[in-house]
């Protein structure tokens, strides 16, 4: 009895700092933002306590940011998926065990290095004196790459590819190789084996990767800011504008709350669609 009691005191003590963090840095700030989103903006730009849906009613003013985000995020996620899948498959099934760790680390490492610098690199490459200059040498003149949807998609795939490869790799690696052989022995063509055995069994990884990339893209700011040149802006860019430049916090809060709701709906859908989806980014980054 006393031993048990001591144990539970220890548990509480060990969890106190973490609980404080979750309470004061996550839960309470969320509540404050929700309260702000029902408030009004004062003449000088501050917040006036109130209970109105005006901010939400005003959301269509930023419709373009919504439509852009909800176009680029799903398409960007899909592009990352189709580029990541073959690599994940290669790493999990084909490559020699000796090289696997090294090759895997090489995929993960870029994800953890500065997204800022990596996105900046593409300003450099796609900008006036990068690839377009090279294309001029072979006679293709006047091709503009930076500040186009193409540039934004390149930035998205470049930034989030590693996050897509890893969960797919994990699910493919767990796959029982005997199943592939069995399918072969039973006369399945490689294509049929892939469609009927490999792909369905790797779906948890695909779903996890897609969800993680999609959520992060919904909040993306840097990629459209650097590669979209002000013409292609996401919700993240609208939020930076509202909180940092034009300082309309109540409206910004309504936008942020809406963004979080869209993300929560996506995650719940994902949880429903895939069973055993409890280890998302848990196992996908490390």
């Amino acid at each position, binding site marked *: 009895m006393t031993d048990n009691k001591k144990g539970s005191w220890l*548990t509480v003590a*060990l969890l106190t700092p973490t609980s404080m963090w979750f309470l004061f840095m996550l839960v309470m700030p969320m509540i404050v933002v929700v309260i702000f989103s029902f408030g009004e903006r004062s003449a000088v730009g501050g917040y006036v306590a109130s209970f109105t849906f005006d901010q939400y009613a005003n959301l269509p003013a930023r419709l373009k940011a919504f439509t852009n985000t909800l176009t680029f995020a799903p398409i960007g996620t899909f592009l990352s998926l189709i580029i990541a899948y073959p690599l994940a498959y290669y790493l999990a099934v084909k490559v020699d065990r000796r090289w696997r760790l090294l090759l895997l680390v090489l*995929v993960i490492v870029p994800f953890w*290095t500065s997204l800022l610098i990596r996105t*900046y690199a593409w300003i*450099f490459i796609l900008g006036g004196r990068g690839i377009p200059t090279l294309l001029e040498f072979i006679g293709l003149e006047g091709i503009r790459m930076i500040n186009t949807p193409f540039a934004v998609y390149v930035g998205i795939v470049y930034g989030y590819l590693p996050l897509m490869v890893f969960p797919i790799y994990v699910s493919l690696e767990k796959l029982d190789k005997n199943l592939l052989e069995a399918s072969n022995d039973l006369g399945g063509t490689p294509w049929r084996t892939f469609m009927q055995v490999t792909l369905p069994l790797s779906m948890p990884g695909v779903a996890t990767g897609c969800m993680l990339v999609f*959520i992060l893209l919904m*909040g993306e700011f840097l990629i459209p800011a650097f590669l979209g040149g002000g013409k292609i802006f996401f919700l993240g860019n609208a939020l930076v504008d509202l909180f940092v430049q034009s300082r309309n916090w109540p409206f910004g809060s309504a936008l942020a709350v809406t963004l979080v709701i869209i*993300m929560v709906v996506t995650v719940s859908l994902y949880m429903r669609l895939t069973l055993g989806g409890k280890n998302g*980014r848990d196992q996908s980054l490390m």
Partner: protein
Amino acid sequence: MRLYSIAVYLFLYIPIGIIVLFSFNSGRHASDFQGLSTMWYGKALSNPFVMESLVTSLIIAFAAATLSSLTGTAAALALQRMRGPMRVLFDGLIYISITIPGIVIGITTLVALVTAFDIVNPILADMWPEGVKPPKLSLGYASVIAAHTLFTMSLVIVLVRARIAGMDRALIEASTDLYATPWRTFYQITLPQIFPAIMAGFLLSFTFSFDDFIISFFVAGPNTTLPIYVFSSIRRGITPEVNAIGTIVLAFSLILLVTAQFLLRARNERK
């Protein structure tokens, strides 16, 4: 298949290579390669704004990583024995903290802290004696460290918990059977086994905090971290100086990351 994979690796690493190459450019223009020189490194490192923001970033990253390693490890140890609704609650919060985009953390922290300061500062001013300047809470180092720690602490919990799960239970039972105190069991059996995970957590936390732009952008107040400095100089135009700073930042994170990856994997592979 093999060619395809090589192409993807090239896609991942060529942009990084280009930044590194052009950081050694001796020309005055960023995209006009004229010859090798380390001139821009000298320029970057003698720029007081760069050095100041670098020091700010290092202090914040070190504080966030240290805090996360301690609190995250403590929480992972406590959660390991926990079951029931509290466990579900904590798992949910950890999951949310890791998955949520940085911009949402930045905004919520900014709004909540500014609101809290608006309430606390007048009270502090009242409490202080006449004539003495009362302390004024504002955004700065502490707010960035606290906001980064939300993510990095959860990261350490996940890493350490995975290591605890893979630990050899028999050793702990043996230690208890041999009448070791719980503290001694922890210190001599558990800690050495989970230490690589804690170190990896520290390094990944450090890297995350050092590289973060968006959270700091919202809550750093008047302080400038290195990513904020780089962001505003890119906005002003590309110079080879940015390439040099970028290369330093990349090299720095690469070293920490590769160390972390090998700390995490070394033991798993040996099995």
